[in-house]
């Protein structure tokens, strides 16, 4: 099990907010302008901008610097990294449990054999 890199913590912190997750869900279907992104939410434009800033700082979205509308787009790499980490961690334990299960069976069989001897 390797240490968790700090960028991963930043990713999870950014994902901890439902509005930001909804924004990412929207962007997973294609890039969008800030105005379009704000539409489904009953929050102010500055609040949306703040969420976008968090997502941008976490590297989860990128915003075009030169286009007039500065559309936002999803950046998949950090999401992938977070997903892989969780999956690896889960597999580590699933497989440890498998070995523990087998080892416990072996020990109990030995005990039974010794008892009978």
């Amino acid at each position, binding site marked *: 099990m390797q240490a968790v890199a700090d960028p991963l*913590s930043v990713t999870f912190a950014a994902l*901890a907010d439902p509005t930001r997750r909804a924004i990412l869900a929207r962007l997973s279907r294609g890039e969008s302008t800030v105005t379009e992104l704000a539409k489904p939410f009953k929050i102010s434009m500055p609040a949306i901008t703040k969420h976008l800033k968090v997502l941008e700082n976490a590297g989860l979205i990128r915003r075009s610097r030169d286009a007039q509308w500065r559309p936002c787009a999803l950046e998949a790499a950090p999401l992938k990294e977070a997903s892989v980490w969780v999956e690896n961690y889960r597999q580590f334990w699933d497989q440890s449990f498998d070995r523990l299960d087998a080892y416990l069976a072996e020990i109990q069989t030995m005990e039974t054999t010794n008892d009978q001897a």
Partner: protein
Amino acid sequence: MSLASDPAREIVVSRLLDAPRELVFSMWTKAEHLTRWWGPEGFSTTTHELDFRPGGSWRFTMHVPDGSNFPAVIKFQSVEIGRIEYDHEDLSGTVLFKSTVDLAEQEGRTLMTITTLFPTSVERDRLIREVGWDQGLKLTLDRLNQYLTSLLEANK
């Protein structure tokens, strides 16, 4: 807010093991046992120190099938038969994550549940203060992972 109650940063894994609780508990107490089951198939551990009591450490090197070795330190906070609590530290003593192992008896078998909290770091704590966490969030990392997978699928 208490970091310990934040489901967005927890991973919970559990398994019903066909053995009594005392026996399952003892699997944590000896190096010869730990090396047989800690880590996936093909992994092994060399124990440098195992002091199984509150405040004591398990210092070990994990040998991975590809030939690489990872030194690791687990510091026990609590070692009761129903519950083991430990911090997974790096070699400098920084806590990477905190885990709780619950051992529950179920008709002669034992349900082992490991709950792991994400690492604490000054940087991350600062981020939590500034960004804020959704207190009502009921999302385990497992569900988060399903969400991540769906995002990645949609983005293809």
